[in-house]
Each structure stands twice: as structure tokens, then as C-alpha cells.
């Protein structure tokens, strides 16, 4: 068998192998994702007060300082 023939078989078996690995790995990832306790968000307060509102919709006017910009963060400790 010539070099190209050997390489062809190497590529054939490698491709089949990696595709099988790809499917198995994907199933394993989905299974892990399903079992992971972290999927349930751990911050119990997140749903308090209903859905979050966008906080960044105030239109910017150059030259005018908004309250947001000068107010120090309330959580800044």
C-alpha cells in the first residue's frame, strides 16, 4: 500500500473515532448540565420584586452630568 493509501485509512479511522467521541462528549456535557446543582440560581433574592428592569435606558446628553454619574454606589463599602 502506498503512502496516500495509508494516510487515507488513518484519516478514515480518525474521523470516525472523533465523530463518535464528539457525540458521546456532547451527551456527557448535556447530562452533566442537567445534573449540575448550579443550574438553579443560588441567589434566592433574584426573583424578589418581579422581573428586572433595564437600568441603562436613560439617554445620554453630552455635557450634562446625570445623577447616576456622580452618585457613589450604595453598595460601595
Amino acid at each position: 500500500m502506498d503512502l496516500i493509501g495509508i494516510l487515507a485509512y488513518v484519516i478514515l479511522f480518525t474521523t470516525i473515532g472523533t465523530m463518535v467521541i464528539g457525540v458521546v462528549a456532547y451527551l456527557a456535557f448535556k447530562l452533566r448540565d442537567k445534573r449540575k446543582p448550579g443550574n438553579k440560581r443560588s441567589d434566592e433574592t433574584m426573583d424578589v420584586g418581579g422581573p428586572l428592569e433595564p437600568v441603562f435606558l436613560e439617554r445620554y446628553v453630552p455635557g450634562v452630568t446625570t445623577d447616576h454619574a456622580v452618585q457613589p454606589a450604595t453598595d460601595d463599602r
Partner: protein
Amino acid sequence: MEIRIVGRYVWRYGWAALAVCAVFMLLALSYEAVQDARSAIMILLQNWALAAITFYLLIFLVLLIFRFALLILYSFLDHLESLYKERDKSAVLYREESSLPMISLVVPAYNEGPVIQAAMRALLALDYPNYEIIVVDDGSTDDTYEKAMVVASESVALEVRVVTKRNGGKADALNTGMTLARGEFVLNMDGDTKLSPNALRACIRRFENPKVGAVAGNVKVINRENIWTRIQALEYVEGLAMARKAQSFGRVVNIIPGPLGMFRKSVLQQVGGYDRDTFAEDCDLTLKLLMRGWHIEYEPTAIAWVETPSHLLDLLQQRYRWTRGILQATRKHSHALWQPRKAGINCYILWYMMFEGVMWPISNIVGNLFFIFVGLQYDVTFVLFFWWLQLMLLDVVAAAYCVVIEEEEPSLIFFAIVFRLFYINIIDISKVFATIEEWRGKAMTWGKLEREGKL
């Protein structure tokens, strides 16, 4: 010192030339085999089903060659343009230290305990006279907030603010940070990112052009410790950096990466900040900017070092999220797909994203399955080899080009072969499944990666 630098260049160019020559030699060797097997190849046209798939794969291959050629050409033109600009430094608008505008660095952090301190300390050492740091702890369940506060209290010369909020996702944390930002420019990054000291200076120069609304940075892999992370290092250079460089020539970078993106604050406010309805908020925001006509450039010298997944399942989780997120963002702006006159260049950008996100992985899988079937059924295994060889040739040429342009390790060229041989098949299967699940509207979660603290 000079000799060492020249030596490094010669070493890099030498390896790149050698790799390209080796692949072309293999192609020349296989030419004879193709000539001998010409009658066997006609099997591919034996019936209409085989002919149709062959024809489809041929179109895909032509598109792929066209894509690589265009990206290399445009990225090279961008490279030349940056060299030309470098020569004309006297025209720099922000050349005086006192005239440099303020930049607010927004660092969203969710359970980044192992890496947050290293990332923040790197930020304190940035070479720029006028900036502030805002760390937004997105309701972490670990000690991210406490660790960030320790570094904040160490900082004397620079203002570092650490705020904590209830968990609302990365987009929400970034929006919070931007609301608090006092700078004219906002740099958004990830909590696990380490910026190169020149990052701010390099990016801010790009805003001399008032049409530029944002600048994307160059993301590189820091934890090159095993085969997965080394292949990703190549992927970041070849698949992401080269594409951004090429797009930057037309000022239409389609994804400002999460680890390093600088924006005009006014532009962010104009588009309403980040939306929370996709899993690729960076891609969505970039498309919003492009749709409004803002120019987006890429700055290759502003480097963001990131920790990439070093295990296969973590990697699949990341790619699954990227694929679905990009599809979600593309769908949000899909009106531009069908309005080439109105959307202009944005129409082509979206089609390019569809090609990269959907057609490429599906065609890879279809091509492999088809040639495996044909090879085994008709005993013509070499057709799979030729298919693989052509794709590998494109990969190696692109890798060699990127190693030279990006001044990267020459060993990355070798990983182009491993990339084509093992890696991309595994990744593409996940991408195809992600596409199917997105199409079916299956629910998904963010899937936070565990950090190993390699920064």
C-alpha cells in the same frame, strides 16, 4: 538584543514557510493518486443523490477558499494600514497626557474568586493616566466581593469601586457598571481577564475618528498547558483575531469580544446598553452598533489574556453557548439579511455569520459522513483523505500567516493539523446540536465555567 529579535523573526518565518511547503508537497504527492483514481472519483456522480451532495460540498469548498483568501487579504491590508499609521504618529489627537480622556473599566464578576485579584492587580498597573475601575459583583456565591474589596483597599492612587448587586446575568452587571461609569469611554471586560499594560492607550487612539463607536481588543489564551488549550490558542489567533483584523479594514468588526471592548459611553447609551435576551450579549451589542452605522475597529496590540476551558466538557459547554448566543443575536437582527440595499454592509456581515455559525459546521459533518460512506461503500477511502487534505491546507496556510502577523509561537502551526484531525469534528458536532436545539427553541442556561486561577 537586536540579534535575538532578528533570530526570533527568522525562526518564526522559517517554520511558517516550512509548514506551508510541507503541506503543498503532500498535495503534490497526492496529485498522482488523484490522476490514477479519476475513474473511481466518477462514483461521486453515479446517481443524483451522490451528485447533489458532491455539488453542495464543492460549493462549500469554494466559499471556504474564498473566505480564507478574503480574510488573509483584508487582514494584511489592515496590517499595512496600521504600519502606515504608525509612521504618522504626529497626527495623534490624544498625544498630550493631560488631554487623554477618562476611561471607566467595568469588570463584571460572578464567582470569579480564584482569578479576580490577579485580574484587578493587572488593571492597577495599566499604562494610562486617567482611568477608574468599577467591579460589579453579580451576586456571587463565593468570596469574589471580599477578594475584590481587598484589592480595592490597596489602591491609593487610583479609584476602584466595588459594587455588589443581586444576580441578574452578565449583561445586567455590565449595564450597572456603565451606569456608574464617569468616563467618556467605557472599557468592558471579563472578571477573568488580564489586560496588557498598553491596552487603554492602544484602544483610545482608534477613537480619533469620530465615526468609530467601539474598538475590539485582541484576545489571547494564557493557560497554554495541554492540547485543548493549545489548540484554542491557535483558534483564537486564526479564527477570531484574523477575522477581526480583516473586518477592521472595513470598520465592521462583527463581535466585540467580552474580554476587551472599548466604547464611547454616549454610543452605549444611544443603543440602550446590553440586552438580556441573548446568550451572546457582546455579539448582540456589536450588531446594534453596526445597525446604527457606527464604525467598529480592532486593535491587535491591545491584548486581553484569558483562561480558556482546559477540559473537553467545559469547552463544549462554552461553544454550545456561543453558538446559540450568536444565532439568537443574528435572528434578532435578521431583517438586515433580506435588505441588502437598506442594510448595506451589515447584510453581508450577517450572511457571513450565518456561514460561520451554521453552514460551516454542518458542511463539515455532512462532508465527513458522506466521504466515510462513499469510502467504505465503494472502497475509495482516498476521497475522504483529499477532502481532509484541502481543508487542512487552508488551516495550515492561515495558521502560518497568523503566526507571522501576530508574532505567535511557531509551534501553533503544528496544532493546525491536530485541529483538523481531532478537534474540529468534536466541536462541530456540538455546534450542530446547538443549532438544532436553538431552532427547536429548547431552554438553556448560562453554564458558568469553573475558574482554575491561572491568571
